[in-house]
């Protein structure tokens, strides 16, 4: 078991009323799964992803990640856990505009305090693997959307996370680019990386091993 959510609730209070973003979510994810989260806009897909990714908190329930209880550990510890095991991929890539491709890839390693020589080797390896060696000194603005997302995924992967969380990774791409990214995810999953993606597309979801449907914050 990689992670387990037990009866997770998340809400906001608005005008004296409690609006539920997540309602009684229970979910177990095993290592090596490729899960697609689907549902209409506002159904809580991204919120769920952020909760799993520890970027966002929740109001009720339990969350176990590996052997740790996320709901009861301290902020700093949680950050370490997150840094160690989780990589994020965003719809709009979210690369750092002021950094080159190479530097963007290096960034997570810096935060994990890898040594200079190690960082170099890992970045070179990743550039090679994604076939973007030629682009290493370009800035994000000089790349196409597909290429930017490739860099985004490479950055998420570089510190060898157990879990990749992807929030509509192909949402801003054309279909060919989307296919390429999905193929890449499939390949990563085959290599043993657990992936949870949020998507609108049935076709993308079909790449996964399991589909979770959300509606108004509830699993259906």
């Amino acid at each position: 078991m990689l992670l387990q959510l037990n009866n997770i609730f998340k809400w906001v209070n608005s005008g004296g009323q409690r609006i539920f973003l997540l309602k009684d979510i229970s979910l177990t994810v095993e290592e090596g799964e490729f899960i697609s989260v689907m549902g209409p806009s506002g159904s809580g897909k991204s919120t769920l992803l952020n909760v799993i990714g520890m970027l966002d908190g929740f109001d009720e329930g339990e969350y176990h990640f590996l052997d740790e209880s996320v709901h009861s550990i301290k902020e700093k510890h949680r950050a370490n856990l997150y840094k160690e095991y989780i990589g994020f991929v965003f719809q709009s890539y979210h690369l750092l505009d002021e950094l080159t491709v190479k530097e963007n890839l290096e960034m997570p390693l810096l935060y994990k305090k890898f040594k200079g020589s190690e960082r170099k080797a890992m970045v070179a390896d990743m550039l090679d693997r994604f076939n973007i060696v030629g682009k290493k000194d370009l800035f994000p603005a000089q790349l196409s959307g597909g290429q930017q997302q490739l860099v985004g995924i490479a950055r998420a992967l570089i510190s060898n996370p157990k879990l990749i969380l992807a929030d509509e990774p192909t949402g801003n791409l054309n279909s060919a680019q989307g296919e390429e990214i999905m193929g890449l995810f499939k390949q990563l999953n085959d290599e043993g990386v657990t992936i949870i993606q949020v998507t609108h597309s049935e076709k993308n979801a079909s790449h996964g091993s399991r589909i979770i449907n959300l509606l108004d914050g509830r699993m259906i």
Partner: protein
Amino acid sequence: MLKNYIKIAWRNLTKNKSYTIINIGGLALGMAVALIIGLWIQDELSHDDYFEKKDEIAQVMQSQTFNNLTGTGPAIPRPLEMAFRESYMDNFKHLAMSSWTNSQYLKYKDNSISRDGNFIQKDAPEMLDLKILSGEKDGLRELNSIMLAEKTAQALFGSEDPIGKVIKVNSQYDMMVTAVYEDIPFNTSFYDAHFLMPWEKYVTTQEWVNNAEDQWGNNSFQMFVQIAENTSMEKITAAIKDVKKNLNEDTEEFNPQLFLLPMKDWYLRSKFENGKRVGGRIKYVWLFGIIGAFVLLLACINFMNLSTARSEKRAKEVGIRKSIGSQRKQLINQFLSESFLVVLFAFTIAVFVVLLSLNGFNELARKEIEFPWSNLSFWLMSLVFILLTALLAGSYPALYLSSFRPVDVLKGTFKAGKHAGTPRKILVVFQFTVSVAFIIGTVIVMQQINHAKNRPIGYDRAGLVQIPTFSQDFSGKYDLIRSEFLGSGAAIEMSTSSSPTTRIWSNRSGFIWDGKPEGFQEDLAWTAVSTEYAKSLNLKIVAGRDFSREFASDSNAVLLNETAVKYMGIIDPVGKFIKDDSDEDPEEPLKIIGVVQDMIAQSPYEPVKQGMYVFDKYENASYYNLRLNPKQSAQQNIAIIERVFKEHFPNIPFQYDFVDEQYGKKFAAEERIGRLSGIFTALAILISCLGLFGLTSFVAEQRTKEIGVRKVLGASVFNVWNMLSKDFLKLVVVSCFIAVPIAYYVMNGWLQEYPYRVILEWWIFALAMIGAMLVTVVTVSFQAIRAAKTNPVKSLRTE
């Protein structure tokens, strides 16, 4: 990691050039001001540090009380020396009597110069630890010896070795050079001691000094001491306090109190009011320190405001960094290193600015400050200064920016909350409060100076020239010289006086007159003048008559000024007599022949002092006063006067001063403050405006979409301009209302020091407020109008 931070910071800086220029430029200006003020304060605080025994040296001071008013000064009577040497010497390691620093004529072969210097007792070179370049340190042992400062020796002897050579002083006596000492630096109390001669020479050559040996009432000398090792200034003061008072009935009068003023307080803390020490120049050290700190703070506020204003642009970066594993601490570090980089940059520019402006500043502040390149502690302080500034300017943005939640900012829905701009507004209000207060302060200082300058001074100072006549050569020649000068056509009137027109050198008491109130302790300014004094100065006679050559009896005549008549309480003074209260006095009583208009001889901020002008029957004049011929140019007149002067006094260097220039020097201190605070005010406003400019551009950018929508809905350029300007104008109005009472309080306090002062009028405050608002509107309008003119299609398309 640091490299990475710096890389990002660098790229951010080069990407937003206008932002960078405003930020670094503003900060550099602020730091330059802080640096210059820092150097100035350092110079002030290190005054007299040249003397290694600074902590042990003191001057003996005396307080005396006349009519319940206590005056304090360094002037002491000569017999005090013997009293100390006989009974109190175990308190002192060294003791040195000294004359005032006076100008003397020094002549070697055909080379004659005039220099300031002291007659002082032989312990002085040891006490002051003068750096002897050649000759002996104990150079004042012999009666006919003189020690010269390096530059003075050079001026007299050129490349010759001065030691053992004989120079003529005041064409009167020969002195042998026994030592040359290093020039005493400018920021010391003895900077103008260009030579030292033995005290004994002073006593033997000046009859009045000789006579003063046992005159306890003749306070005309100075005494410096170095205290013994096992005691303290306070202990000695306690011991010597009443030495003069307890002597006899005569000295008891005026309640003389003696005390030591330590050398470390001479320069900064030597102002006394009614017997109590009330600070002194230290006030200005504080004042400028505060100004410097404020200007720097204003620049730091710009940095904070612009950084936080740009927060929406940096928010995404913060989100991404957090989502790929950055901790908040690391983000704080990143933003702080960015701020450090900016500050370091600004500091480098500030150093350049300081280097470029140091000469001008020295002239303005009358200083000789050099840039302390080789001073390690300066660089250490600078480093601390940079770090502190970086922390001050960067901590708020660092804490604010790093607090963003990645979920919020990455969703793209991040909007700074309703109150996010509040701290920014408060800081802007603070900036403009300081600026407006500075404006008001400067205007009032300027006004006060002008007020005093425009005060009628009682005589005509334009076209009046004074020539010092300290040497014996001048005695007995007055009538001859006068007819020569008048005959040459360069002067239309001439007189002599015992004090310069712009000073009072002598005050006397111990008179009796009809109707003098019982127990009245008078204190009168005393000037000995020649017959034509009033005529040459265009000083008006308001009652009686002027001195006249036709009355031989005028040698015992006196003129009073108007204040003296009121002060002494004499009704119908003309024809009455003033007598010395001692019966043994051989002089005849002085007959009051007339009353002259009050003339300002001392501070233009104080009431005119009661004074008497007596006929100078001994020709003891210190100055010639010449009324130049108005039909010729001043240069022509001076050239003729110089020629005549040289004919009669070939051994004496020709020196002269225009009285109006001398009078102008009375305003020097206030004018310096006025000019400096004017400059700092201008810089403070400039820095605040830079910040405002940057801020408006960001606000305009933030509201691009809103402006677009408004324009589509029919808003005019004026509407948009109005909308953007109003917000800032409101802040400035708030600032004005905070600044006005503060400025009023502070400036009112400052003005209290001047008995003759300007009245604070409401329009000064109104002017400052309108000025600040005008500057704001102009600054804001640049951006506002540009934003208002943008085509809405463009700004809406970017969404």
